[in-house]
């Protein structure tokens, strides 16, 4: 086997979590952070116990029954971490230099507020080894922990998990469960968050158990039966009803041998760790330690119309009543062993019953019927709710939608901004116009002297939102404005205009940010921004200013 060092092990962990094995010896890793800021634990300033916000209250209240202070200002007792900054600086100044100490590579980092993207060009031997070890998977959507990792040294196994933590590990002060410790309330949890991939959660659980004897508190599967058991999302028409992320949750006090290299994650991890250690919880709380308990009929979940959705892994396109049943379906060796030792394996799989039962088929049928009955009840409830919805409430809903800013609201702001930009950029006055409602060729009659710069004017049946032309050298500027997250589709729209009109500068500007997929695509092939040896620039409109993305 390839000589594994801690840096390679760490890289393998990063790839398993959020990696892409590209062509030409390139590996890329994304470090997503959905929120720019994340808050730490709210602690009572008087006794240091956990403080939480009661319903309908403005301030926090201490959970200590001997204190109960109830006027705690959340902004004064919580630490705030800037994840966007920390992700970028940690990848650039900590992770990349660490990798370079053990791997010959060339690394590039780009980032937006929601994602930092690391691209590595590595040597042929290592690339082939990585491709082989994960084969047939080529990206994190279908990777699991390779069997080879079990034969790594302990140091390398730890680095492998560190890589997983930096990509998909999250410390979150909101993830506590109500438990009483000796000195505090609320037990903090950290979790691995896995998107779409059904292989990885069980792979992580079984690896940590086998290699480190570490407990996992639970696995929260994104399966419709688990995450939308009451069908609330489904009947509200939310697409998330058939595919949320999975979370493998654990208590930080057992995981001190590992570390995050992303600084904001590490600091928050240490905060949660310290809270739990000070609180002193007695129980280990491993889902497997407590055994598989027999499911009662009142624990059966409703049938969900998306439980056989094609976007789910084939092995879980069926009904489940408990999370451990999904673990079993996805190959958990520990539950498989319990199943093998049970008297009637089919009965165990459906109900968790391990001993012999005379009427096993009847029990299974009863479970199946119950889930259908529950579905019928929920469906009837939602249908009667829908009928009672009046036109007024529907109208009110639309009114709410109207409150969002419209794209056309951005045009006057961008007209003014572009005038100033042209003046600053080339020191010329300019004519800048909102051309969103008519084509450039039709609009040209408004100012023929300026628009005559376009030599193919009769062909310009295009409508960029804002067009500017400088008054001395007739330089042209296009803006395509959006109020949505910018993706390849939005870029393509402007590229179409640019390939016909060839403006001197073109801007794609949104009130929202750039999508991670567009960011990754630019990193992979910058050519997509180009037209006639020029590049579209991407920016965010904030009040009346445009912040360009540095890519």
């Amino acid at each position: 086997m390839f000589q594994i060092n801690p840096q390679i092990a760490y890289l393998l962990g990063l790839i398993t979590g959020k990696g892409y094995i590209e062509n030409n010896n390139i590996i890329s890793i994304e470090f997503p952070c959905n929120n720019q800021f994340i808050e730490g634990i709210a602690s009572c300033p008087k006794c240091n116990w956990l403080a939480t916000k009661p319903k309908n209250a403005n301030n926090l209240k201490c959970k200590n029954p001997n204190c109960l202070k109830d006027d705690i200002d959340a902004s004064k007792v919580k630490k705030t971490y800037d994840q966007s900054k920390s992700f970028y600086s940690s990848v650039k100044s900590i992770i990349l230099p660490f990798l370079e100490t053990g791997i010959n590579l060339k690394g590039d980092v780009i980032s937006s507020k929601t994602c930092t993207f690391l691209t590595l060009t590595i040597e042929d031997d290592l690339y082939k080894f990585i491709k082989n070890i994960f084969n047939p998977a080529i990206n994190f959507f279908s990777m699991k922990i390779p069997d080879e990792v079990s034969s790594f040294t302990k140091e390398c196994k730890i680095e492998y998990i560190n890589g997983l933590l930096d990509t998909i590990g999250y410390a979150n002060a909101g993830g506590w469960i109500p438990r009483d410790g000796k000195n505090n309330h609320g037990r903090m949890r950290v979790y691995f968050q896995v998107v779409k991939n059904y292989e990885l959660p069980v792979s992580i659980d079984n690896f940590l158990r086998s290699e480190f004897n570490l407990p996992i508190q639970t696995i929260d599967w994104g399966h419709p039966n688990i995450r939308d058991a009451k069908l609330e999302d489904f009947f509200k028409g939310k697409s998330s009803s058939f595919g949320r992320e999975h979370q493998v949750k654990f208590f930080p006090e057992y995981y001190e041998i590992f570390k995050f290299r992303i600084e904001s994650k590490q600091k928050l991890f240490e905060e949660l760790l310290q809270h739990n250690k000070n609180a002193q919880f007695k129980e280990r709380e491993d889902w497997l330690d407590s055994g598989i308990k027999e499911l009662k009929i009142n624990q059966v979940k409703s049938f969900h119309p998306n439980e056989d959705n094609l976007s789910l892994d084939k092995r879980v396109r069926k009904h489940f009543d408990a999370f451990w049943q999904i673990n079993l379906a996805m190959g958990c060796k520990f539950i498989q062993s319990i199943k093998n030792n049970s008297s009637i394996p089919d009965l165990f799989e459906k109900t968790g019953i391990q001993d012999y039962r005379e009427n096993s088929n009847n029990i299974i049928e009863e479970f199946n019927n119950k889930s259908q009955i529950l579905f019928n009840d929920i469906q009837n409830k939602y249908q009667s709710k829908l009928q009672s919805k009046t036109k007024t409430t529907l109208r009110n809903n639309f009114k709410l939608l109207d409150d969002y800013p419209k794209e056309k609201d951005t045009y006057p702001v961008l007209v003014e901004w572009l005038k100033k930009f042209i003046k600053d950029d080339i020191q010329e006055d300019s004519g800048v116009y909102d051309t969103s409602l008519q084509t450039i060729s039709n609009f040209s009659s408004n100012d023929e002297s300026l628009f005559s710069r376009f030599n193919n004017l009769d062909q310009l049946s295009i409508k960029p939102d804002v067009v500017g032309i400088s008054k001395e050298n007739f330089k042209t500027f296009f803006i395509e404005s959006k109020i949505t997250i910018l993706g390849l589709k939005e870029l393509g729209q402007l590229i179409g205009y640019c390939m016909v009109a060839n403006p001197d500068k073109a801007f794609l500007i949104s009130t929202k940010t750039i999508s991670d997929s567009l960011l990754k695509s630019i990193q992979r092939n910058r050519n997509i921004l180009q037209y006639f040896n020029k590049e579209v620039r991407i920016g965010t409109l904030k009040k009346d200013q445009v912040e360009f993305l540095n890519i």
Partner: protein
Amino acid sequence: MTSQKDLFQNEINEWIKNSLNNSSKYKYVKTFYGENISKINDVQLNTVESKNYFDFQCDLSVLVEDRSSNFHIILINRYTNAVGLTNIGEMLTYCRLVKPIFAFIISLVGHSSDINKIVSNENNAKNIFEYDDHNQIFLLRLENSNPILDSILPVYARNRFQQIF
């Protein structure tokens, strides 16, 4: 009830399937409808060059196999109304990124009259339809699962289209 778009999508799939089955170069394997195929775990799909780059959704992504048993993707976007420059720009951006062996924009109506002057100029047409050194996006109208030859754009690439399809 099946929508007009779904029916049209099925019609397009029938056409591409039949065309490929009559071709000596490529064999039809399967179609992914409206999916981000970079996120799909499929043994054959995983071998497509730059598979991870397909991080977007086309209406149809068709997996085909060549005579050397290599797998490739054909991208198709379908429209029930007239196709404009923004639709072409969108496909051009996908094609520059992933360089598919073929790319189609197929409409029930054809292209919008707004872009007549643009597409009738060969230089302009090359700028908006060409990617990866002389490969072209084909824009066409499909009727009863048959391409209308006069609708195929760019005009200068009609012979190439007929030779292949």
